[in-house]
C-alpha cells in the first residue's frame, strides 16, 4: 500500500526553482532512497515533504489524505518525521531532554518513558550519556541521538537526510543496521537521502536518482546500480561535482 505519495512537486527558494516536477512514492514497510550529487535538491525535497518548505505546486498525500502545505509540526503529528541533515541536536539540552522532545506530539506518558528505555537499550551511548548536553556528544553519537529522537515520535515514515555524513566506516555500518531495524522493529517506512551510494545500495529496496532537481532514473535498487550517475557517486565525485 502506498503510504507517501508526492505528485508533480515544484519547489523554490524565492525565485530560485529547485524542483520543477518531481513525483515519488513510498510504500508501507519500504526503504526508499533518493541518491544524487551535491546540490541536486535532495534536502529540499525532504524539507518540502516534512512541511518545513511550502511547495509551490504539486500534491503530497500521506495515507491517502492530501497533506500538501501542512506545517512541519502538524506533519510530525501525523507520523511524517524527518531527521534533518547535520543532525541538528539541541546542543544545550541534555540527551534525555532531546529524546523526550522527540515524543512531543505523543500524549501517553508511560509509553514515552518505555520508549526512552527502549532507545537507551538500543543505542547504549544514550544511557551512558543520558545527562550530558547534546553538544558534548561526538558526531557519531549525535547521529544516533538524532535517529533515536526521530523514532521517539513513533513515525510511520522516517525521512533521513544523509545520516552517514561525516561518520567513520564502522559507524556507517551501525547506521545501516539501525535503518534496517527502523522497518523491522519500529515498523516505519524509510525515505533515505544519501550521497553515500554504498549505504543506500545496501539498505534500500528502491531508489530514485536526482540530478539538478529532476529525477533521472528510478526503480528497484539493483537496477540503479549500473546507472552512469551511480558511477560518479561511487567514485566519490558526487560532492562538489556540478
Amino acid at each position: 500500500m502506498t503510504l507517501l505519495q508526492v505528485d508533480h512537486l515544484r519547489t523554490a527558494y524565492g525565485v530560485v526553482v529547485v524542483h520543477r516536477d518531481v513525483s515519488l512514492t513510498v510504500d508501507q514497510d519500504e526503504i526508499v532512497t533518493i541518491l544524487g550529487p551535491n546540490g541536486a535538491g535532495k534536502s529540499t525535497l525532504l524539507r518540502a515533504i516534512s512541511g518545513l518548505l511550502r511547495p509551490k505546486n504539486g500534491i503530497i498525500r500521506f495515507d491517502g489524505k492530501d497533506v500538501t502545505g501542512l506545517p512541519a509540526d502538524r506533519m510530525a503529528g501525523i507520523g511524517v518525521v524527518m531527521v534533518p541533515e547535520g543532525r541538528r541536536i539541541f546542543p544545550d539540552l541534555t540527551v534525555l531532554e532531546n529524546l523526550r522532545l522527540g515524543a512531543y506530539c505523543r500524549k501517553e506518558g508511560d509509553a514515552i518513558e518505555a520508549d526512552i528505555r527502549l532507545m537507551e537499550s538500543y543505542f547504549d551511548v544514550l544511557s551512558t550519556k543520558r545527562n550530558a548536553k547534546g553538544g558534548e556528544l561526538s558526531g557519531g553519537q549525535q547521529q544516533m541521538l538524532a535517529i533515536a529522537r526521530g523514532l521517539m515520535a513513533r513515525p510511520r515514515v522516517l525521512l533521513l537526510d544523509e545520516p552517514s555524513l561525516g561518520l567513520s566506516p564502522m559507524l556507517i555500518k551501525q547506521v545501516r543496521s539501525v535503518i534496517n531495524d527502523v522497518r523491522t522493529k519500529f515498523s516505519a517506512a524509510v525515505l533515505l537521502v544519501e550521497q553515500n551510494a554504498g549505504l543506500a545500495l545496501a539498505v534500500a529496496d528502491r531508489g530514485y536518482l536526482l540530478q539538478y532537481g529532476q529525477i533521472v532514473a528510478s526503480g528497484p535498487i539493483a537496477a540503479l546500480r549500473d546507472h552512469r550517475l551511480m558511477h560518479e557517486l561511487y567514485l566519490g565525485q558526487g560532492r562538489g561535482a556540478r
Partner: protein
Amino acid sequence: MEIFIQQLVNSLSVASVTILIGIGITLIFGLAGIVNFAHGEFLMVGGMITWFLVTSGLNFFLALVGAMIFVGVLGFIAERGLFRFTLEQPMNGFIMSIGVSVILQHVVIRVFNEVQKTIPDPIGKVWVVGGIDIIAMRAIVVLLTAVVVATTYFGISRSRYGIALRASIADQDTAALMGIPVRRYVTGVFVYGSVLAGLGGALMIALFPITPFTGSVVIIRGFAVSLIGGLGNVGGAVAGGLILGLVDGLSAGYGSPEWTDAYSLVVMIVILIVRPQGLLGGTLGPRAT
C-alpha cells in the same frame, strides 16, 4: 551600613521593575526575533491601569492583577494583529513597534491626560529588619519579582513547555520537526512577556510616579538588561538587571546621582563591546537559561 542596606533595597526594587520587562524582552527577542520597542509602553499602560483602578477604589493587589490581565490581552492583540505579520521581516517589526509605542502614549494621554500619576503607598508601613528600617512596599516589590523570576526560571529549565521553548529558541525548524507548534509558543511568550510588563508597571507606580512617557525610559533599561545578559537568556536578564540595579544604587548612594542612568548605560556598552553575546551568552545562539 544602615544607609547602604537601605540603598541596596531601594536599588533592588528599581532593578526588579527592570528585570520584569527585561525577561519579556529577552524571551520575545530570543524566540521570535521581535524587537518590541512598545514593551516599555506596555509597562506604562500597566501602571496607568493600576492607577485608574486604585483611584476608583480598588485594592492595590487586585488592581495589579487587573493590570496584568489587561496588558496580557494587549500583548495578545499586538502579536496576533501586528507582529505575526512581520516575523519574516524583523526590521519592519521593529519600526512598527516604535509606531505602536507612540500610538499607545497618545491613547493614554487621550483617555487620561499627560499629567504624572501617583498612588498612595499601598502598604504604607516600614519594616524593621535587624534594626534597619526598610520601606515595606519596596521589599514586597523585590520579593514578588524574586518569586516571578524563580517561577519563570524553573518553568523554563524543567517543564515540558519550557524545554520545548528553549528548543524553539535554539532552532525553530528542528523544533517544528519534533511537532512543537513554534508559532503558538511565539504567541505564548509574547503574552507572558506582556503580563510581566503589566506587573512591572503596577509595581512601578507603587514606588514612583508614572507619566505617559515613562515607557521610553524604561525600554532602554530593559534592552540594556537583556543585552547585558545575552538575548534569549532569562538567567542573563536577571543577572543584567541586578548589575544595573547595583550600579544605579551605588552611584546614587556614593557617586553623583544625576549620572545614574549614564553609569548603567556605560556598563552596558562596555559589556557589549567586551562580550558581544552578553555575559551569559545569547543572541547568535539564543537560549533561555
